[in-house]
């Protein structure tokens, strides 16, 4: 920045490193715990360096042979459920929202404002506020314990529509006019021109929605009752039901690590688009 004082630079690095340590500590600890046996962990203090049981623990977790007092559902299956849920929510929301935002911005039709406000309202109320009635709807439609039940209600909020709308409003008008003169109809314009230009927003929204979908807790808790439809974040909580000594903490931590990997991969690899898109569009 402006000053070149060494002390300030050092302080900055020190603060950053401290911040990083605080952020990383729980994660590091979880990893260490996932490589020891349950007994080693339960004897306080647990070791602070990784142990040798990496493969044992992870394979036990994946296949559901944990043996702890809490739930022993196979993590492999739960990861799959989480993955499908997250992907369906992400793609579903993006697709639906692209179409609605396009309709709202580029067409004139009666009640347009009404629809805009109706969609805007959904931004304000997260699913937690309407859990019981939504549960009843799903139940009535026979969608309990299904991927549809896990995902479709979560596509109902219009965050993506709103963000795409904001973005579309920044596309220069002349592009639309030039396309009109070139003979492009609305869908052609949408496909050939608008979509390619929206790549960054779509990437950012994909990250946000994937993580949103992956992290869903309360809704799946209600919408599924059978173990083989639990997403991994619900499953992991059920694993610690056995009390401190009854839980197989090493398995739990192995599950935690595995549960964090897909979202972390998505965030780290799409970091550039995601950060730009998140900040630009959320404002």
């Amino acid at each position, binding site marked *: 920045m402006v000053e070149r004082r060494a002390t300030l630079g050092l302080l900055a690095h020190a603060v950053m490193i401290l911040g990083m340590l605080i952020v990383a500590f729980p994660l590091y600890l979880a990893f260490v715990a996932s490589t020891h046996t349950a007994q080693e962990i339960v004897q306080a203090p647990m070791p602070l360096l990784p142990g040798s049981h990496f493969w044992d623990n992870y394979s036990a977790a994946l296949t559901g042979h944990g043996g702890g007092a809490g739930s022993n559902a196979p993590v492999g299956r739960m990861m799959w459920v989480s993955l499908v849920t997250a992907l369906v929510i992400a793609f579903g929301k993006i697709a639906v929202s692209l179409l609605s935002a396009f309709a709202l911005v580029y067409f004139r039709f009666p009640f347009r404002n009404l629809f805009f406000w109706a969609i805007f309202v959904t931004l304000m109320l997260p699913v937690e506020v309407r859990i019981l009635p939504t549960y009843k709807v799903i139940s009535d439609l026979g969608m309990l314990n299904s991927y549809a039940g896990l995902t479709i209600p979560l596509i109902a909020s219009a965050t993506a529509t709103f963000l795409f709308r904001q973005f579309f409003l920044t596309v220069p008008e*002349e592009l639309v006019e030039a396309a009109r003169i070139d003979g492009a109809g609305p869908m052609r314009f949408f496909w050939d021109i608008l979509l390619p230009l929206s790549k960054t927003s779509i990437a950012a929204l994909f990250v946000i929605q994937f993580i949103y979908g992956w992290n869903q807790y309360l809704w799946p808790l209600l919408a599924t009752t059978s173990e083989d439809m639990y997403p991994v974040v619900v499953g992991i909580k059920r694993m610690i039901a056995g009390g401190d000594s009854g839980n197989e903490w090493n398995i739990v931590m192995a599950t935690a690590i595995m549960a964090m990997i897909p979202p972390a991969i998505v965030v780290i690899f799409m970091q550039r688009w995601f950060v730009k898109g998140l900040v630009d569009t959320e404002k």
Partner: protein
Amino acid sequence: MASITLKDVVKRYGTGPKANPVIHGVSAEISDHEFIVIVGPSGCGKSTLLRMVAGLEEISGGTISIGGRVVNDVEPSERDIAMVFQNYALYPHMSVFDNMAYGLKIAKVPIDEIKTRVDKAAKILELGPYLQRKPRELSGGQRQRVAMGRAIVRQPQVFLFDEPLSNLDAKLRAQTRLEIQKLHAELGVTSLFVTHDQVEAMTLAQRMIVMNAGRMEQIGTPDEVYHRPATTFVASFIGSPPMNLITGQADGSRFVAAGQTLALPSAAPRAGEMILGLRPEHAELSRNGAAGWPLKVEALEMLGAERLVYGRVGETLFTVRLDATLVPPKVGDLVTLTTTPEHLHWFDAATTKRV
């Protein structure tokens, strides 16, 4: 036949009693192959008029015909026109080639034909080496040429230009102006060119339409518009420095303006309140005392090949252009301004129209 006919064209924003008319009935006949420039200050409605011809704005009244066909309700892509935008409007994610080919692709023109046309346009505009580049890798001038290329390949009946040179720097503007002239000489497509710059208008137009506040003040060749302006607006808008205009009472060979009585080299066309116009280059200055109008010099601008003398006749500011070979007066001098009869322009003071 690519003629354009504008008949009583009107544009209103809004409807009913609150409607805001921005174009008040413009009529003009433009023949095939003509290069017409629509020129006027910001907000005069020239772009709106162009966009109505393009089909990007709705026509509130009157008719517009292209090639003999009334196109009021015809979609832009069906009007057989092409447009060059001020901001180029290039598709940022497509290459130069794809930008130019897009319209043809939609019209389902066969690929070989597309390639032939694009290559030909690229050759004319010297865009050959850039065909695979994206717009953001090009300079402003190059982007403008791509925009023109996009218009050329469609082989339309009419070219529409919406202030295409405004975003270019001065040198590039001059260069591109010549290129557009060359293009028209080669292709001969009927063209409507909108600009606020009267130099562009004078250099490019075969005929020009001068617009002000939604009305067409004059349509004519650059010569006609310059030497026989139809209104005081046209007189002061075209020509730089602008024509000197002085309001007063005319009576035979005398003109009374702001308390001063000026002798006229010829009788005024009629008596009464008139506006007298005189172009700066049509005035001569001589030592005080000669018969003419007294001018008190207030400022001088030395421009190399010529000099501009700013002074007052009575209270009215006058500009006189002197050749650099003549000895200029000094600031504060009282000199005499003379001119010849054919250089006087007379306008009715009430209607501002030429008399």
